[in-house]
């Protein structure tokens, strides 16, 4: 580090902090919009549902912005040789979190294109599943924020991610059991199972990221 780059680090740190905060805000907001979008979808269908399409577009824009931010943050971390001991962990974390936004966007597009038809009886369970999935991601965002600012609080949020993921597993299992116990055709059963898995996948991914984050936290706290 020479004197000029040291000064640049001081002035650039705030910008980078803001970028990281914005990135995490986007993930948190996209999980809320994902939940809202699926609720609109279940209540009113997908293709001609203006509210659902609006949420889809919002998540789509957020995904693009998150990609931009991730690239910019990664570039800054490398160019300025910041946090050398945790840089690799930080980059992995950013990639993993960005992947969650991608999954949100991908799922909403899949609903929009394939328009799976869930029987009304399954709606409460589907909404609960979506809620648990969104909560797991929001807890993960809280854990990631703590990793940056208050490493002692990371575990407080990580255990919630695991709890919500477990709840989502139970709900997904209950949903699939009900789907295959119904008198729908096999094609529709398979189609709905596929969409239940898609929704549940988000919490599974969140759990994987949480496991890695727990390890990064041990390193950061050392």
């Amino acid at each position, binding site marked *: *580090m*020479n*004197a000029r780059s*040291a000064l640049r*680090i*001081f002035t650039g*740190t705030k910008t*980078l*902090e803001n970028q*990281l905060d914005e990135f995490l805000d986007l993930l948190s907001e996209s999980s809320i919009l994902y939940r809202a979008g699926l609720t609109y979808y279940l209540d009113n269908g997908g293709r001609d549902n203006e509210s659902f399409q609006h949420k889809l577009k919002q998540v789509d824009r957020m995904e693009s912005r998150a990609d931009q931010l991730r690239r910019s943050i990664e570039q800054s971390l490398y160019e300025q*040789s*910041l*946090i*050398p*001991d*945790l840089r690799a962990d*930080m980059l992995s974390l950013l990639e993993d979190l960005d992947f969650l936004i991608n999954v949100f966007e991908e799922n909403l597009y899949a609903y929009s294109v394939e328009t799976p038809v869930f029987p009304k009886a399954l709606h409460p369970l589907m909404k609960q599943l979506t809620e648990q999935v969104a909560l797991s991601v929001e807890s993960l965002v809280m854990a990631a924020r703590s*990793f*940056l*600012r*208050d490493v*002692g609080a990371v575990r407080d949020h990580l255990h919630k991610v695991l709890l919500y993921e477990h709840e989502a597993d139970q709900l997904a299992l209950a949903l699939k059991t009900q789907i295959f116990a119904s008198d729908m055709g096999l094609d529709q059963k398979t189609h709905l199972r596929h969409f239940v898995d898609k929704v549940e996948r988000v919490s599974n991914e969140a759990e994987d990221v949480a496991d890695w984050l727990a390890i990064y936290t041990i390193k*950061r706290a*050392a």
Partner: protein
Amino acid sequence: MEIGILIFLSSGLFLGWSLGANDAANIFGTAVGSRMVRFGTAALICSVFVILGATVSGAGAAHTLGELGSVDAIAGAFMAALAAALTVFVMTKLGLPVSTSQGIVGAIIGWNLFTGHATDLSALTKILGTWVGAPILGAIFGALLYLLTKWMLSLTKLHLLRLDAYTRWGLLLAGAFGAYALGANNIANVMGVFVPSSPFTSFSLGDLLTMSSVQQLFLLGAIAIAVGVFTYSRKVMMTVGDGIMALTPVAAWVVVVAQSLVLFLFASAGLKSFLEGVGLPSLPLVPVSSSQAVVGAVIGIGLLQGGRAIRWSLLGRISAGWVATPVMAAGICFISLFFLQNVFDQQVYQSAEYRLTPALIERVAADDAGAAGLAELSGETFDSERALIKALAARTGLSYQQRFDIARLARLEQPGGDTTGRLTRTGGSAPCQERLAAAAPTAYRNAP
């Protein structure tokens, strides 16, 4: 300046280069090794502050080294520095981080053995004590500072990136402080043996700057250290960075600060007189090993974390190096002095005679039963300190330290001359004179 003197000084410059390559690398080793600070920046800051420390505050620790053995001929000083430098160089090649402190102390003892000079046991004990004390103090400072830093960080909840920026600045500032302390403390290792035979004369630039001959000598040594830093310390820095255990940047900062504090405590005359002034115990001004301080600090942090991350086998090798270095330097110096004197016909020490004058005997013996046999030695001339000390041991009940002090004061300025009991003469180092001046007539009462 004669070219011959420059040639003799070259061994000191070689030793300075070794110090720059090894000891100075300890200062920024963890910062560069953890890739928080670039090598070029570290080398620049290290060089500037080593030079400042050496020229501004370098005299304190040199004094103690002078007590250990006053190498009084430039050829002898050349060989002592060369023996120390060669030992450090060999140890570095073997991958053992040793310090010039250990090398030069061993070399001076080798010179003492060869020339018949006695070794001041109180100064030697002081130095050996710091070789045990410095790593322990480093470990204590390291552990306490680490705990304090972690506690402060948990309170402030700094953003990871902000902490990173602060740590970089912290490493630079602590490194500058460490380099200053290293220059002040360790320049004695490099140029201390040349002080009695310094070829420079004082000069002034108006009222702006006055440089004594010793300061010029130290400046030259510090420049050699800076060259060592730039040319050879990179590899050592990278090794020190994660050799004993992998360090986080914050832990790296703690290590640099802890090490710098240890060096500073053993180098600052101002701090010493302040502590003594307020009635607190002070540490002796002794050139300590930066390697020992840094290893101690790393161990302190490692033990705080349970000790699992520490590579104990490497630590064992390092400790063996610390023991082997002074022994090896003493051996090389002793053998090389023999060749330098007998093959190359160089004067490696000022020959002198030692005689107990009636005034000196009267002053020491006045109030001391142990000194009863002193009168028997009156007027007898000895050709070395050791011979006189041996004779004193046979005929008096004085302790080694008392015999050593008397021997230093019994040195005649010129062979065949007479001291007439004066206390200010070339042979007696200042502390030795102070001890005797303060002693008469009561200090020898408790002699064994």
